């Protein structure tokens, strides 16, 4: 008898949860972590068009999920263009902005907190973010960099609110409020499209992989504020201040995930990891600057009933000895580049293996090469079944459709346990 969508939904949830818990599933699923522009590229629609039209984007994502037979609807990974425009965003570049229509959005790394400003940030993170970081990352916040607001509590009475008038009418403030309103309208539209997408997918039997996203505290500091160069130099020139910034950002790292999961009633969280990979630091530096706040985040997720889904970007083979100490059966480890056999040997009793099919194969290889690669994974992990098929960071934008289909066909052919 054909299962109902509700039964399919429950089976797929169960399959994922069993694999994470290291219980042998009935079969190996294909579950892309996310998709960016693959769905629109195969539909002949430009990146700029889906960046601007959220309902078009989610429609094409739904079509791709159904067409290739994935076991869940991949997460939305494209930031909204009109929101970025409204904020005059400088920390991102996007198609339809100053990038060509078929380019992907890209991050602009920079030292948004300079080395000699770290003390100011540590003394007043909230005030510094408002007066200095926001104007640097988004043009509409420029007035905040020169308006000297008094502390809010000085003005929190009926008589003194009048004193706000000169600040609120300062040059650029009207444009800032208009920009924020335009941003809010588009961001609401984006969230509405995403909500409708998850509702529709669930009704057809496809779970949502995650809504909550949070970075390890080191990456928040390095990616967002200090840059690779800046955070690296901090390790030598001002290590105590770097550690203090990590301490400041740890609650953000934890609470943003827990808040998003509670607000959306979801129990999985995506944790992209950037600067802890092999080559990026020594074991000693990793133990001092990266691992403690990362594990704090992982344990906070678990204690709050959330399955952490760290994406170990880069080559984490040199860190497997650390990963092996995480609580068994609690972490859904998505791997980018990794020595598969070493993972199985060191972490096979600790966590499942997810991803790692090279994007180069999906974008430039043949279906047979893809099938051979998936078979190699199933041969290695099939005994326990602790395996989920995906590429390194979800389905690559340039993947050939026949190769993506080969992922699924190989899982169907070799992955029934």
């Amino acid at each position, binding site marked *: 008898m054909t299962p109902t969508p509700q039964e399919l939904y429950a089976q797929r949830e169960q399959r994922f949860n069993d694999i994470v818990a290291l219980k042998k599933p009935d079969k190996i699923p294909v579950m892309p972590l996310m998709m960016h522009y693959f769905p629109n590229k195969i539909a002949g629609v430009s990146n700029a068009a889906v960046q601007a039209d959220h309902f078009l984007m989610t429609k094409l994502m739904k079509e791709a999920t159904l067409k290739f037979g994935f076991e869940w609807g991949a997460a939305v990974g494209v930031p909204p263009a009109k929101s970025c425009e409204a904020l005059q965003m400088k920390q991102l570049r996007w198609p339809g902005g100053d990038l060509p229509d078929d380019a992907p959005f890209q991050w602009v790394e920079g030292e948004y907190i300079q080395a000699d400003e770290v003390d100011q940030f540590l003394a007043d993170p909230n005030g510094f973010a408002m007066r200095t970081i926001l104007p640097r990352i988004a043009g509409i916040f420029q007035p905040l960099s020169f308006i000297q607001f008094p502390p809010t509590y000085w003005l929190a009475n009926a008589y003194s609110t009048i004193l706000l008038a000169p600040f609120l009418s300062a040059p650029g403030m009207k444009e800032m409020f208009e920009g924020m309103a335009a941003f809010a309208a588009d961001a609401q539209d984006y969230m509405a499209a995403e909500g409708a997408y998850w509702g529709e997918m669930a009704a057809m039997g496809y779970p949502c992989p995650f809504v909550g996203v949070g970075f390890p505290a080191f990456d928040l500091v390095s990616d967002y504020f200090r840059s690779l*160069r800046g955070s690296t130099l901090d390790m030598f020139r001002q290590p105590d201040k770097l550690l203090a910034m990590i301490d400041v950002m740890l609650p953000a790292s934890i609470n943003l995930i827990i808040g998003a999961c509670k607000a959306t009633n979801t129990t999985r969280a995506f944790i992209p990891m950037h600067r802890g990979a092999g080559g*990026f630091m020594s074991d000693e530096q990793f133990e001092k600057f990266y691992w403690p706040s990362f594990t704090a985040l992982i344990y906070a997720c678990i204690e709050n009933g959330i399955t952490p889904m760290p994406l170990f970007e880069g080559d984490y083979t040199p860190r497997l000895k650390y990963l092996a100490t995480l609580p068994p059966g609690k972490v859904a480890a998505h791997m980018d580049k990794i020595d598969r056999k070493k993972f199985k040997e060191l972490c096979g009793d600790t966590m499942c293996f997810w991803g790692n099919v090279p994007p*180069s194969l999906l974008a430039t290889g043949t279906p047979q090469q893809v099938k051979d690669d998936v078979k190699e994974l199933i041969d290695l992990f099939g005994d326990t079944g602790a395996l989920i098929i995906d590429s390194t960071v979800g389905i*690559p934008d340039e993947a050939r459709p026949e190769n993506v289909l080969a992922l699924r066909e190989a899982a169907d052919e070799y992955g029934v346990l």
Partner: protein
Amino acid sequence: MSTELTDAILAMNEDGALKIVKDRLDAGEAPEAVLDDARSAMTTLGDQFACEEVFIPELIMGGEIMKGIAAELKPRITAGEAAEKRGTIVLGTVHGDIHDIGKDVVVMMLEVSGYEVHDLGIDVPVESFVAAIQEHGAQVVGLSGLLTLAFDAMKDTIEGIDAAGLRGQVKIMIGGSPVDEQVCTYSGADGWGRDAAAALQMAADWTGGAA
């Protein structure tokens, strides 16, 4: 050769290294000798990186220390006395991709290892690579990319270099997170590297020197 300066650089002792440089210059030592010692430290750092004894933070910090030393020494070294270059390399992030972290580390390591490096920046059009190869007489070209769109951009660039009749005079290396042997074959590059150490090794092999 004084080991005091190389030891300070390898220990990432920035203030100590700069003080040694100033003391040696004040004592009347030739700036070229001081520069040779500093370069020797950076070569050792590259070797240590290749052996996975040090990692990207030490390369970046070592590069910063070297920058400080070079600023101190440059006004005192005349152009004619500048060290002979080991080879000329044109390098950039391919068109469509604006990432530069990996490229910058490779550029820095090649420069401190004595190569003349022309960094074309990010999102570099095919014709800019072709023009730079012609202008500088490059022996080696490095193509960097982080995004999967870089696979085709690398292929385009190599085909463009070929179409300009320059393929025979240059060796081409590619690198970046998603790059592997499959992409090397697909793009038609001569070699690919996982990190800056691999780039240094290829440059040395192709210009007839030691890494």
